[in-house]
């Protein structure tokens, strides 16, 4: 156990100190501006708001580490919400509607992966196309009108609170974060994601199967997006075709805030978790202290730039240390080479 704690200290926590400080700063700042900000109810509210972005951010993190990305997540979430609502209205029980919608999401993921691996399209371009197609399908499915949900079980999935406090979406989100955190850092599959992000061809020569990994990642991401979309529909009592617009960008923002590098190979699920918290706390905070919506958008962009500047500065000083370290090691090892 102590070992685990030490490891966390060494890697993630130390690395994420900026984000943790930012989080505390936000709590102090908004807490002093609005006394309702640092309350249990509000923190739960922030977590509920996170649940939509969070699922997608997990998938995006995986993809970005592997050198991929996905712009279609918002469309998939909306379409899945509409589909689940339609199925529910047609009399299907909640689990069937949920699974069918997630399965449909997975199909979109498989399509994305096919475009990327077989047609060799850039992930950005491939998913830009599916983003449009799937959004269109969402509108077509329901003829452009929101689909109301009356099934009580379905609605409870979005609104029921465990022990009266912990909403189901938040619980599931936390579990998903833990599962993917372990998957990424402790398993063979996780390692192969990092490997893929650097150099696909070298990964293949090292004995990996890049095509299969890319398929799995896109299917996971779209499945997660669909699941988030269904949860949102449950919370809203309806599937709405215009929902989740720009969801993928919030998710990517959370991942990047959390230290995921767009060049691939770098990032952690824990980082994304913090990134998501910072992003949502910031948004909720701005709302609660009455910053106008348009200015909120400006502020969100600035947050990203400021956070990344900090990161850049820290990396810069770290690289300097690393250089000195490696020169020292080389000198220490040099006498051996002579013999």
């Amino acid at each position: 156990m102590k070992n685990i704690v030490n490891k966390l200290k060494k890697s993630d926590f130390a690395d994420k100190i900026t984000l943790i400080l930012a989080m505390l700063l936000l709590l102090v700042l908004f807490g002093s501006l609005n006394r309702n900000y640092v309350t249990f109810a509000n923190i739960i509210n922030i977590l509920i708001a996170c649940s939509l972005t969070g699922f997608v951010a997990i998938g995006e993190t995986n993809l970005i580490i592997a050198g991929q990305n996905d712009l279609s997540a918002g469309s998939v979430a909306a379409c899945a919400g509409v589909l689940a609502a339609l199925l529910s209205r047609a009399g299907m029980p909640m689990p069937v509607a949920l699974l069918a919608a997630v399965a449909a999401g997975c199909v979109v993921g498989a399509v994305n992966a096919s475009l990327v691996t077989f047609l060799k399209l850039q992930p950005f371009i491939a998913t830009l196309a599916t983003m449009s197609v799937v959004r269109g399908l969402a509108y077509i499915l329901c003829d452009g009108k929101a689909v109301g949900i009356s099934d009580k079980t379905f609605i409870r999935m979005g609104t029921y609170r465990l022990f009266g406090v912990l909403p189901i979406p938040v619980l599931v989100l936390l579990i998903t974060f833990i599962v993917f955190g372990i998957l990424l850092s402790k398993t063979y599959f996780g390692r192969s994601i990092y490997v893929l992000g650097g150099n696909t061809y070298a990964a293949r020569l090292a004995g990996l199967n890049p095509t299969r990994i890319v398929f799995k990642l896109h299917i996971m991401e779209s499945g997660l997006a669909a699941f988030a979309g269904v949860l949102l529909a449950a919370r809203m009592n309806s599937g709405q075709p215009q929902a989740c617009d720009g969801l993928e960008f919030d998710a990517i923002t959370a991942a990047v805030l959390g230290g995921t590098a767009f060049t691939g190979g770098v990032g952690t699920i824990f980082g994304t978790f913090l990134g998501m918290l910072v992003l949502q706390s910031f948004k909720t905070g701005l709302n609660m202290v009455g910053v106008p919506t348009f200015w909120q958008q400006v502020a969100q962009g600035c947050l990203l730039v400021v956070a990344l500047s900090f990161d850049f500065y820290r990396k810069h000083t770290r690289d300097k240390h690393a250089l000195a370290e490696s020169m020292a090691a080389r000198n220490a090892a040099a006498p051996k080479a002579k013999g």
Partner: protein
Amino acid sequence: MLHSVEFRHISKFFPGVKALDDISFLAESGQVYAFLGENGAGKSTLLKILNGDYQPDAGEYLINGQAIHFSTPKEAIAHGVSVIYQERQVLLDMTVAENIFLGDWPKKMGGMVDAELMRRRAAEIAARFGLDISPDTKVGTLSIAHQQMVEIMKAVNRNSNIIAFDEPTASLSDSEIDILFQIIRQLKEEGKVIFYVSHRMNEIAQVAQKVIIFKDGQLVDVVDQATTSEDEMIRLMVGRSLGDIFNELPRSASRGEPLVEVKDLTTPYVSGISFTAYRGEVLGFAGLVGAGRTEVMRALFGLDPVYGGTITVEGKAVQPRSPAQAQALGFAMVPEDRKMQGILPNISVRGNITISMLKSLLNKWGFLMESKEEEIAQREIRELNIKTPNSDKLISQLSGGNQQKVILARWLETHPKLLILDEPTKGIDVGAKAEFYRIIAECARRGMAVIVISSELPEVIGLSDRILVMREGRISGEVMRSGFSEETILKYAMTDISK
């Protein structure tokens, strides 16, 4: 006009390290000075002081007898110092003329770029060096060699009188190297001071007059290229000669059982390839670049389609269709292009070592056993003498030789029966080469079948027990160790025997 560069007692320290220790020499117009030394000997630090990237901690730097101090590379450029790097710094989507004037485009009245002047100057420079490069060509459409020429044109256009080349031939073909050398000679004739950094002894012999030899941050000697033998230079920089190194290799007395038999193998690139690799034997593949040696190995490793022929491993017919399947058969391949095909750049040294055997490091729950992984990494770092502060270091931050050792370690950890090494010491300094030779010989002695592709004849001769020579996609000859000579191998490798 004559130019000179002088370093007087230059030293450069990094925390805990003396990167350069009291370096003094004078370089003058009309000579090409080669920098020779192992990685970490101080060559690149010196280049960085030359071009103003680093500032010396002690000593004087003089150009044309005047002490100078550069605080940025830009100031060095203004004083006529240009360094041409291995990685080309050209913009592929811009024209030749635009690249030559990069960052300093001439302006007409009103601030518009003077495209006509740029084009004229570019054409002049191209004509002066007899280069067939049009000013309006997009640089991205040029061959790599010509892109490098554009860099040189850029240096000439800045009126640089001191030009340093940092491993310029790493990605050039033989004929392209000839063009480069012609240009370097012309620059020399024009009175420039030329520095040339390379690991390739034969290039230094062709182009340099003086060789400045570094070892561990110190200047060992400045010798005349013409009167100093290659072996002597290697001895100065490493402490021993290549001949000794090859003679001391551990060799098995006799080869073992046949391991891999290839019969009439035909792919899109090679045809009628038949040979047997034996346990305990180093089998060399010689031949010119493009003769099909790499392609034979690609077929064995499941990378190229096989049209005909058979591959058997220990008597069983096999058909590897992917590197993963080849690995399962006990094959391992250290590829030729370390950067594109070997290293996983974003991953730690540890991750790079263990990736191909990682599946055997899973516990019953499917989780990686990290302490075991670290043990393996530490063992390889120790055994192959990989110079890295720790196993967490990103592999891309190591020197080329150490990266190559990591790739080799990766494959040794899969406990291969057949180890294929494609140009294993390309671009690696002589000291690390010697280590590689020992490791390769040791692998064979321990019972692996080892195949080494090498374009360097002394290397393939010194290392192999038997050599197959390829020419134009076919095996053109087989030579046993007793019959090794450069002439015999060249005779089989060249179409034109008269050479």
